């Protein structure tokens, strides 16, 4: 359904952030992109959502080349995107933001249903502004609602676990597990979390701007936590070597 072909992105200072990234997200699959910080995962997610154009390469969605489409056009084509750091708006309420996402006015019942899905009570949240008064966990859940409310064929989540507390995290895993079971579209999730990796159909590892591994969960997961992660310049390692 989604295919990246040799996608590269070079920063203004000439640093190559992504180099020839290629992978496929099949229909109704739950795919997790993982890898070290600074490896290019978020850049990949942003390029898929149309927040930034690739320097080279091609993006296909349901067989159509969407490389030149901007974020609005990709959203209309059926791609949803949840920000790693959700954006806040003075004056716009939770209800209004969800309605913008759904593209329709929603009655109390629908708003309640949408918020309940992420463990929030509509009475407490629907009329609150999406501003700095919301905690990190609260706004993260609302961000997820705005993506789920769109019912897109492909939903991209950039580190949904970032900045949320343990209780919210447990809730978050439940949301993704439920959606995985319902299979109402594909999910592409950028994450470091083992519990999300555990429910993935497929895992893609991006490191140093390249896809270093991709395959089924059973194939990739056992290889992720076995490698020596210690820094080569680690003083302890140097001492032990003496």
């Amino acid at each position, binding site marked *: 359904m989604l295919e990246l072909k040799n996608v590269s992105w070079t920063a203004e200072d000439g640093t190559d952030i992504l180099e020839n990234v290629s992978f496929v997200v099949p229909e109704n699959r739950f795919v997790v992109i993982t890898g070290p910080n600074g490896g290019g995962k978020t850049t990949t997610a942003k390029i898929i*959502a*149309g*927040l930034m154009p690739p320097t080279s390469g091609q993006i296909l969605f349901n067989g159509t080349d969407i490389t030149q489409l*901007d*974020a*609005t056009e*990709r*959203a*209309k084509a059926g791609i*949803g*995107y949840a*920000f790693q750091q*959700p*954006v806040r*708006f*003075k*004056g*716009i*309420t939770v209800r*209004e933001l969800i309605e*913008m*996402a759904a*593209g329709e006015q929603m009655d109390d019942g629908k708003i309640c249903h949408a918020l309940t899905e992420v463990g929030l009570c509509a009475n407490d949240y629907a009329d609150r502004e999406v501003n700095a008064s919301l905690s990190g966990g609260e706004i993260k859940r609302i961000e997820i609602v*705005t993506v789920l409310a*769109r019912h897109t064929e492909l939903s991209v989540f950039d580190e949904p676990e970032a900045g949320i507390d343990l209780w919210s995290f447990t809730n978050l895993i439940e949301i993704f597990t439920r959606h995985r079971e319902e299979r109402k579209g594909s999910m592409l999730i950028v994450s470091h979390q083992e519990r999300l990796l555990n429910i993935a159909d497929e895992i893609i590892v991006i490191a140093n701007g390249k896809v270093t591994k991709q395959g089924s969960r059973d194939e990739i997961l056992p290889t992720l936590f076995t490698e020596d992660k210690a820094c080569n310049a680690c003083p302890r390692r140097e001492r032990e070597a003496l």
Partner: protein
Amino acid sequence: MPALEEKERHYNMNDITKALLKEVSGMDGEPGEGVAYNIREDSTCAGRQSSRDIKITPKKDKPGIDITIDPGTRSESVYIPACVTKSAVSDVAYNDFFVGDNADVTIVAGCGVNADGHEDAQHNGIHRFFIGKNARVVYLEKHIGIGKGDGKRIINPETYVEMDENSYMEMNTTQIRGVDSTRRNTEAKLAANAKLIIRERLMTDGMQEAETRFKVEMNGEDSSVDLVSRSVARGESVQTLYSNIEGNAKCSGHSECDAIIMDRGKVNAIPGLLANNLDAALIHEAAIGKIAGEQILKLKTLGLTEKEAEEKIVNGFLK
């Protein structure tokens, strides 16, 4: 429902007044029986009615009215919109509100100005509020300018408020369309335990100019003010916002000035905090900037175009 006690006169309003009234005060036709109102049209009275608890009487020495709200009035509204419907009218009105102790009222005071020719259309409303002990007032004021004439649409409101002990006032003022030039001045003096909430919404466009000044003196123990001004400057428009809070007793004051600048709009925010008492707690926050790129991007990922996203952000901000 208060019984109708007095209905001085009622004239036919012209169509422009009807259109303006609907915009500024939500009035669609004549208010019902028992509702206190005064409609001012091109410096004359186009309709007036007192209620049992709210008396409206014209001033004898100058243009304007006295609005006397009886002590203990419960949950009643009074409408006092003013309209200038043509160019070459420069209207001044002095309106005094005497709000009795323990009263609870909503005052709707919109102003609409229509310039249809080369000359300016102007309304200067000078409002004074004397709010009694334990009284509660919600004041709603919406200003708009319309008309295709090249004369300027000018509104210069002045508001003076004296709040007695334990009184509460909420002022919601909005001016978001069509007014070419405005100078707003609002001053308030608060006695013990008085609480003042101010919410100002302002948008300018084209070559419009707006200056708004607030001066709040907290003179009584445990008085408080929360002043939030949000504005958008588009086109070539220029705004200057002064907010001065003075703490002369144990009190708490908060002022916040948020502005979005678009196109080549300019905003100058000048806050002032003066603490004359050791127990005065005063805070000011100010932020001016263009719409954050991330905000536009977020709404684009929901399927909105850039223009739609901007409108949603501005409308929400000024709501």
